């Protein structure tokens, strides 16, 4: 079970002396679920220890234990050799263990200085706050966090990358000895992520021990000194950050990665979606929304086409625009669905054209969580189960029980509430709902986000068998290996444009280079099938 990866190179780790942190045999059960099955973890002073794992692998639970938010059932924690027991995040804070959660613990309405000193305000004698002193100290802290910002700016006016750095400064203000960063780059642009990596290294150089939770394999070699991989509540291995990514992936998923994917289709049919020089003009532009400009791509019957690009490249936006979701608008250029000009730009038009959309946020936009599975499954096809406007329990029941069987939704009860289903089963309900509309084109945005490996394999199989019936599938994902394994072709986007296209079995590094290229000339060198 345990696979110690060779190549772990301790000589390179800059840690000094004994371990700063040592966790031994940590166990935690939630009801019948073993979230942690006796995990060991340690951290040296001045090192960045990357913690990798799929969703549900137990890394959040482990860090919850370390930061005092979760009380373990069993196990020992010691810091600098002294056993500790945290009953609350406050306890951990006081011991110098600070967690920077993904949802940053900052108050948007207060300025930076006020945030940094929240709970330990500097005061002048009596009641009055010493704003001048706090701002001066804030400047020093911000400098240490590698950013120079006016400390009187409200946090709400900062970009995400800047907020991340403010959160680090806040941890420094609390005299952090151990800093836990939970997927800090999830919402950052590539440049911001680069900058953050530099700051992280610098902090470590000053003696702070850093646990860096991530699922972005590509950033591991840039920040990490050591990598620990978790799966199914266990520590399954330790690796060097310079180990090949395929090795890490195999560790993460527990079996050779390629086995997850079904074989590709033998042949494809007529085109279902054709875009040529297509741009989208929304009726109400949204700030920070990367609108599609000059996009060219095609999806054929029985074909799965992947859409990749960095965060903010406009993948989600293109899908939303095709579906008219978020904001109505007008397409310019060629947009054909099933060979005819579709006049897309609203949800109604997309539905009439035979497009179905599985969004990247099933809890927010895919499902009504408080409603039963049956209501959710028939939500997009109400007309079909309500003849003359009256709800037909019989028709609804028939449609729902067939959908539950087809998509293997567990539990098999139509009356179960969506909120009580696991992530994978929720995703199956969303699939069932969308496919009941009998689409010819299926848009999938991050279809495997937040589901475990088993459910991922199930979803891949499902998507492939759907496409085998003649459905065209366009799938956007930030996980490149997933696209490479699943798709027949992959289209790369940047700044709202489609920049190039790769065939099956494409090279991950080449796609990445095309995604990150600063301009089109650099990209032109990358692709081998444009």
């Amino acid at each position, binding site marked *: 079970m345990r696979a110690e990866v060779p190549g772990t190179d301790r000589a390179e780790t800059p840690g000094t002396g004994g371990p700063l942190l040592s966790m031994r045999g940590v166990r935690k059960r939630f009801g019948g679920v073993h979230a942690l099955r006796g995990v060991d973890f340690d951290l040296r002073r001045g090192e960045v220890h990357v913690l990798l794992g799929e969703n549900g692998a137990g890394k959040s639970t482990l860090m919850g234990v370390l930061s005092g938010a979760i009380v373990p059932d069993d196990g020992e924690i010691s810091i600098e050799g002294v056993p500790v027991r945290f009953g609350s995040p*406050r306890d951990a804070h006081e011991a110098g263990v600070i967690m920077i959660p993904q949802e940053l613990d900052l*108050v*948007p309405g207060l300025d930076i200085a006020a945030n940094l000193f929240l709970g330990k305000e500097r005061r002048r004698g009596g*009641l009055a*706050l010493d704003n001048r002193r706090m701002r001066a100290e804030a400047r020093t802290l911000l400098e240490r966090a590698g950013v120079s910002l006016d400390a009187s700016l409200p946090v709400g006016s900062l970009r995400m990358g800047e907020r991340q750095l403010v959160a680090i400064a806040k941890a420094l203000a609390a005299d952090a000895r151990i800093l836990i960063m939970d997927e800090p780059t999830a919402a950052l642009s590539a440049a911001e992520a680069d900058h953050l990596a530099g700051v992280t290294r610098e902090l470590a150089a000053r003696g702070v021990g850093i646990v860096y939770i991530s699922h972005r394999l590509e950033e591991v070699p840039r920040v990490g000194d050591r990598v620990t991989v978790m799966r199914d509540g266990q520590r399954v291995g330790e690796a060097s950050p310079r180990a090949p990514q395929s090795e890490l992936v195999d560790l993460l998923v527990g079996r050779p990665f390629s086995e997850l994917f079904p074989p590709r289709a033998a042949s494809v049919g007529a085109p279902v979606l054709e875009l040529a020089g297509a741009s989208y003009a929304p009726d109400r532009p949204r700030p920070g929304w990367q609108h599609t400009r000059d996009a060219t791509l095609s999806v054929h019957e029985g074909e799965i086409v992947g859409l990749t690009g960095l965060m903010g490249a406009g993948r989600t936006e293109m899908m939303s625009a095709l579906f008219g979701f978020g904001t109505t608008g007008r397409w310019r250029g060629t947009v054909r669905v099933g060979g005819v000009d579709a006049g897309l730009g609203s949800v109604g038009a997309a539905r009439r054209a035979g497009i179905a959309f599985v969004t990247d946020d099933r809890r927010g936009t895919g499902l009504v969580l408080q409603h039963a599975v049956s209501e959710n499954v028939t939500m997009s096809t109400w007309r079909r189960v309500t003849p003359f406007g009256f709800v037909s329990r019989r028709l609804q029941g028939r449609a729902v029980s067939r959908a539950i069987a087809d998509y293997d939704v567990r539990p098999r009860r139509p009356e179960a509430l969506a909120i009580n289903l696991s992530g994978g089963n929720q995703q199956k309900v969303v699939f069932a709902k969308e496919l009941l509309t009998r689409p010819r084109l299926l848009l999938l945005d991050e279809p495997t986000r937040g589901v475990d490996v088993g459910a991922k394999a199930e979803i891949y199989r499902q998507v492939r068998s759907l496409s085998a019936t003649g459905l065209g599938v366009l799938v956007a994902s930030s996980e490149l290996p997933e696209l490479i394994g699943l798709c027949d072709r992959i289209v790369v986007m940047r700044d709202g444009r489609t920049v190039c296209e790769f065939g099956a079995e494409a090279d991950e590094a080449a796609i990445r280079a095309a995604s990150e290229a600063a301009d089109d000339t650099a990209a032109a060198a990358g692709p081998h099938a444009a």
Partner: protein
Amino acid sequence: MSLAAASAPEAARPRRSPVALLVRFQSLLGLLIVIAAGLVFSPHRHGRLLFLQPDNVANIIRSISETGILALGMTFVIIAAGIDLSVGAVLGLSSVTTADLLVNDGWGLWSTLPLVVLIGTAFGAVQGAISTRFRIQAFIVTLAGLQAARGLALIVSDNSFININYGHGPGSAPPAFAVLGERIGGVFPVATLVFILLAVAAVALLNVTRYGRYVFATGGNERAARLSGIPVSRIKVSVYALTGFASAIAGIVHAGQFSFGSPNDGTGYELNAIAAVVIGGTDLFGGAGSMVGTVAGAVMLGALANILQLNDVSPAMQLLATGAIIVAAAALQTYVGQRSGGGSR
């Protein structure tokens, strides 16, 4: 300083969009527009603008002193992401209790006023405690509190209004209490002076004390506040105690201003107070707001009503105009919130 900082020079550029500046002074902007309109449309008499007559200005600020006081407390509650619908009713309870104690029970000022303030503060604190302890939405708790305070007021007053007569001996209130209805130098209303003093205290409490920070933090990101060691529950209870305190003071001012206490006093004032707070740029979702804005919002509502009335605009149109102003203020806030991009709630 660090090498890392140099690699991201764009992070160093402080940004202040003109729109954000607009929202910052949104309430003052509205006030300025209304005052400008007042100057343009003011009727003249003997070659002078009626709107700017010292008497007229005094009338405006007198008319908003009570809702203004309520709005000061309400600002704390709303910034802490709460709401208090009971303020008008607590004003009535305080007003009638003051009248009853002074007139019917022969109490002196030094015993009556502190007791009324204590009752109001306690009433608010209890509402806050119920809402926090039992996790009931503040809207519901204070809606119930509104009913309860009206009921208590009817009990205290024995279903009747109480006229306050001044003098010595039974059935009369101490003459000193009448000062609340007077005008300094014949012009400046004492009730407004009370409002201004409280406003200065409220601005200071919100902006320069640790307590104010905690209120912002509690409303802006409760989890962050809790993690930072802020006693979130206590802060939540305290803001309702503050509205109760403000309501009690407003009730005393009401009783003194009109020499009268009725259990029906202050009916609907809670909505005017909320309107002043919202026009002042405070976010109904909590976490952001301005006390100066609230004061400006209250003055603006008073000035608007005044200028409409001076021009013989019909009462129906006055209500429509007030409604339109509230919606415009809210729309501006949303618009700027989207533009500045910081509107994470």
